[in-house]
């Protein structure tokens, strides 16, 4: 397991941060981000995929009223792929529109989807050797979040109540002293904080340019509850990649 991993460093893998606006479609945006990243890693080709297709063609037909990442992957499998964002752009309207999946050419597809074990080391290992994955967390602390690494107790952020899906794109370690108290004259002992890097869907003006960081190793805000990823390409030994 490498000490750090950040898929944003590979051109064309992590596409620009989306903004869901008042549409409760984090589940679709996280799923699309996952497929885009895996497609970019496997095929060395950047494709921006349609979130709207997932909203319109979801089996629950809930549109912007919420959904689950696994439903998004089911829709991609049922539709034999996903159209491009350019062809089938995001509308963000409350009610689902007519499903236009058959109208547009598919530009990416998946073989399968699966859930990883609820173990942060295994999640990190998969992230580093296969690519970004979706996680569903308790978003309570994100309402007031500006930057830095969130480390909370389970009482502050209940890991059992998860209600927001995002994309896990990397991990690393920060020196606590580097981020706070630089101006202090008296040196303090350094505390290294391991963290996850997550891509949100609330626009680039939120958090750390649309991203945020959670403490790694304490199941912060329920990160290990539903680590789900699509599988792009056949599961062979050759599919391992290396995170920068």
């Amino acid at each position, binding site marked *: 397991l490498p000490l750090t991993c950040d898929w944003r460093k590979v051109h064309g893998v992590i596409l620009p941060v989306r903004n869901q606006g008042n549409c*409760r479609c984090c*589940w679709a945006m996280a799923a699309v981000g996952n497929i885009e990243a895996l497609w970019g890693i496997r095929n060395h080709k950047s494709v921006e995929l349609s979130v709207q297709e997932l909203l319109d063609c979801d089996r629950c037909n809930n549109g912007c009223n919420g959904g689950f990442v696994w439903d998004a992957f089911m829709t991609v499998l049922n539709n034999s792929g996903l159209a491009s964002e350019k062809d089938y752009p995001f509308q963000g309207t409350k009610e689902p529109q007519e499903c236009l999946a058959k109208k547009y050419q598919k530009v990416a597809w998946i073989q399968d989807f699966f859930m990883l074990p609820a173990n942060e080391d295994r999640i990190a290992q998969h992230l580093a050797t296969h690519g970004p994955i979706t996680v569903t967390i308790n978003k309570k602390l994100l*309402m*007031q*979040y500006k930057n830095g690494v969130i*480390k909370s107790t389970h009482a502050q952020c209940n890991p059992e109540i998860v209600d*927001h*899906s995002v994309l896990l794109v990397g991990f690393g370690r920060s020196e606590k002293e580097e981020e706070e108290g630089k101006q202090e004259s008296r040196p303090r002992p350094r505390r290294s904080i391991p963290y996850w890097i997550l891509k949100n869907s609330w626009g680039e003006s939120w958090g750390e340019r649309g991203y945020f960081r959670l403490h790694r190793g304490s199941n912060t805000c329920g990160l290990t509850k*539903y680590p789900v990823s699509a599988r792009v390409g056949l*599961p062979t030994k050759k599919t391992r990649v290396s995170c920068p």
Partner: protein
Amino acid sequence: RGPGIQDPGPWSLELKEAFALFQIQFNRSYTSAAEQAHRLLIFAHNLAQAQRLQEEDLGTAEFGVTMFSDLTEEEFGQLYGHQMVAGAVPNVSREVVSEAGGES
């Protein structure tokens, strides 16, 4: 995070200025004076909450004014994220094979 937050009223000038800055930064306008006052109350509550989170945080996070600072927690929960998944476990098995195996 100025004074006046603990005591809900009368609002301090500092708090009102912070709210005015928030409105400019996030392009917020309200339909009536009553709505404006209501949102100011929520804003003050959220600032106090951010301060509490800041004190309790064990990492390096900074909490404060965000684009959601004029929303109640309930509104934030309704507008963003998705429905609760507790109890709605999907019919998907966790991948338990070794990475080298490559098959689920």
